[in-house]
């Protein structure tokens, strides 16, 4: 039908009917009946009447007329812009162009932005700030919605309140805090030490240090809430270091009241060397069981650009024993690096200490990183694995033999 219409349209247009027009018609619905009844007085083959003919450049007039007069007067004297102001202008233009640029930037952020060594570094930093701003805005919006909902609820006439009868005073949060602190204090006397090695500042960027401290705060929190906390030691923590600054930023006044041990000394000076075990994913040795007499060291390092062997080098230098988690042994690894975040390490170690159950402990490895759990230790599965491998290998061998046969004739 449509093609018939098109054909007709062509005939109509191509001077068979010089007066033909498509006034008020949609191109897909070329009504046969109306074409035939077209009267001679219809206009030429433009799409609209002269009176309502489109002025295609009208937008230019609008754009030019919309200009405020004063601006055009002040523009002629170009002012030397400071580099900061120029950068702000550039950012504004990028934002208008629809790039991921935050709306507001502090002086400090502007400075970091301008110090970025390359275009791509600048882009990345802006995107980071933009997303941060977006999340913050969304959080704020949600908070406000919540507040409004609460207000509405309050305004509704509430039922006459029954007097609550309960033997306890409702003081959950602070009571819990007290209980946790009590436990943490106990762990500082009797607990098993756990060391965080804070000597990686040079290997990290400022953002990585900030991430590290955030992870440490999370680990400290989950340690405090556990049934039997570790006695946490922050070793090699210098007073004027970036780590320290970030800690103060994170904890504020609470930093001085934390029930942990902070020292600028090295762990080898504090503890006997033969009891120390450095946990690192690069270690050739795999941890078999959690030893309650050992003192485990975790490197406080976030390495976004995977730096292999940095913490292993640290342990080698000091001649310490090392160990890696038996991830391969218990999990069918899927993707991702084998280094885990500090809070995940903390969860795993706490669970191991309490239960000695690897399956439970390794639940804290992110699910995306592995496909499943190996029920039995791998050495028990070895036979089946070997069988599977030989089967696979046998198959592959056949494929290899077939492939050249497929490929050569083509060449």
């Amino acid at each position: 039908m449509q093609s018939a219409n098109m054909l007709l349209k062509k005939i109509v247009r191509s001077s068979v009917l010089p007066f033909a027009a498509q006034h008020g018609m949609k191109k897909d619905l070329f009504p046969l009946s109306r074409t035939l009844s077209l009267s001679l007085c219809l206009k030429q083959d433009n799409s609209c009447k002269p009176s309502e003919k489109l002025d295609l450049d009208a937008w230019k007039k609008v754009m030019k007329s919309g200009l405020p007069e004063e601006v055009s007067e002040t523009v002629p004297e170009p002012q030397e812009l400071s580099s900061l102001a120029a950068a702000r202008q550039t950012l504004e233009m990028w934002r208008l162009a629809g790039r991921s640029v935050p709306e507001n930037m502090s002086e400090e952020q502007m400075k970091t932005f301008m110090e970025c060594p390359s275009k791509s570094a600048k882009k990345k930093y802006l995107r980071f700030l933009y997303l941060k701003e977006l999340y913050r805005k969304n959080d704020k919006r949600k908070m406000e919605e919540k507040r409004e909902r609460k207000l509405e609820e309050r305004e509704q006439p509430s039922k006459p309140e029954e007097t609550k009868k309960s033997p306890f005073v409702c003081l959950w949060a602070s009571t819990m805090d007290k209980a946790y602190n009590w436990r943490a204090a106990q762990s500082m006397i009797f607990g098993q030490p756990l060391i965080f090695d804070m000597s990686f500042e040079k290997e990290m960027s400022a953002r990585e240090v900030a991430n590290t401290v955030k992870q440490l705060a999370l680990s400290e929190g989950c340690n405090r809430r556990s049934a039997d906390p570790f006695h946490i030691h922050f070793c090699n923590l210098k007073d004027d270091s970036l780590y320290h600054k970030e800690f103060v930023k994170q904890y504020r006044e609470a930093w001085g009241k934390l029930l942990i041990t902070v020292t600028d000394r090295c762990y080898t000076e504090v503890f006997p060397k033969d009891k120390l075990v450095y946990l690192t994913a690069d270690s050739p040795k795999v941890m078999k069981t959690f030893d309650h007499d050992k003192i485990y060291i975790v490197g406080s390092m976030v390495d976004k650009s995977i730096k292999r062997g940095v913490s292993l080098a640290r342990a080698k230098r000091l001649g310490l024993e090392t160990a890696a988690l038996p991830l391969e042994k218990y999990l069918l690894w899927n993707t991702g690096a084998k280094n885990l975040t500090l809070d995940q390490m903390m969860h795993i170690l706490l669970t191991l200490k309490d239960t000695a159950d690897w399956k439970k402990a390794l639940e804290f490895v992110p699910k995306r990183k592995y496909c499943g759990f190996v029920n039995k230790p791998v050495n028990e599965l070895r036979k089946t694995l070997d069988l599977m491998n030989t089967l696979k290998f046998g198959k592959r061998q056949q494929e290899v033999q077939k492939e050249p046969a497929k490929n050569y004739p083509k060449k």
Partner: protein
Amino acid sequence: LQPPEKPLQAEEWNRLRENFQLPEIFEEVMLNSMIRCNSHIDVAKSLLTHMAKRNGDVAYNMLVKYLTLCVQQGQVSEILDVYDIMKARFKILEIGAYNLLIKGLSNSDQWRMALTILEEAKKIMIPSRTGYESCIKAASRHQETKLAFELYNEMLAKNVVPTLDVLQSFFDFSKGMKGAELQKELFGILLYLRENQIYPHETFMRSIKLWFESIPGGNWRGHLTNIKDSGQCPVCNHQLEDSDLTEEEYNNLSERIIRDVIHGTDTFRKTSPQEFEAFQTFVENRLPFDIVIDGLNVSHIKPRRMQCENLLDAINCLAKENARLLVLGRKHMLTNSANWKREIMKEMQSKADFFFAENISEDDTFLLYATLRSGKHCKFVTRDFLRDHKACLSDSLTRHLFRKWQRGHQTALFLSGEGRRIKFAPAFRYDCVVQTTGDTWHIPYKDVFEEKYSYQVPRKWLCIQQK
């Protein structure tokens, strides 16, 4: 979303907008699809008019999108109009718009305007390489060779890497032109290829050849050829440069390998100071070696065989003619195991010197050190491409030196034939870079469609000689 074929009236746009599921981004999506379908510019104009009437303004990103469409279709007068509007509206533009303007105007008779826009863009940021590319091409197209070279040099000074297209355009546009100055500049480009170990592709090579042959009174003749393994050019019988480094380069490289690759940020990451010292005294006492072998790498060549047998085969192949061999391995090779039989290890140790590193140390770094210490004649055997070690070197100059040295000294081994025998691919005797002797030029090039990895070098050459 299919853009309409004809300019629409405001009501029609409104109707379309309301039918779209996300009316707030309707215009943006519509303009994008117009760019994709290369719609007629009038359709876009009618949309802009509709927007202007609706909001009294057209947003900057819409202007940029419209500009993209104009540039795509080469609508010069429209580009100029949009530029005027943008300039009146905004104090500065962002780099994307500048790039579009440059690209659009450089292809027209308004190309000088593109140059002024490039100047403007420089005020806010280093222009992109494509921005420079358009301007340089426009200048050379209009015989402004001097200007083109000025821009090119400025680009290099700002560390903007020129595209091969730009380099090629210089040769294309300089065809048949006379002038010692011009010739010097173009030779400069060839030397740039040499220094950065860039290989031109086939069409670029043809441009170079045609330019040489078109130099008035130059009497240059070009031939395509393959260089013999000996490094002799079959056309002019000229012997190509060998890949030996100069004394200074050699010392520089070995120093940098020790500093950046072996020590790096922390000596303990790859070895330990004690071990490295032990290795150094070991090497110094036995120098010089002729071939250094990466034992573990070689031992894996046939997966179905015992690893020590593989290694023994390789050593037997290489041990001829009294060559002094050094095999690097790890301590675990010494413990009698399924893959490493003690008797075979003993046999091998009588034929070659062995150094066993700690199991957690990296033996590759020792390989590099021992080869470099032994001198220029020494080769090393491994299938490894050594990319991770190259990456440890901090500046590109040393990396180029490393690649050059690697090409000349690495013997790779592979399996071939029905019996799957171990074969060795000897290192290149000649250096695979653009080179000249004044009256000859030899330029390696790659086929356009040939996939080339960074470690591969082209086998095809352009030989140019002056009669």
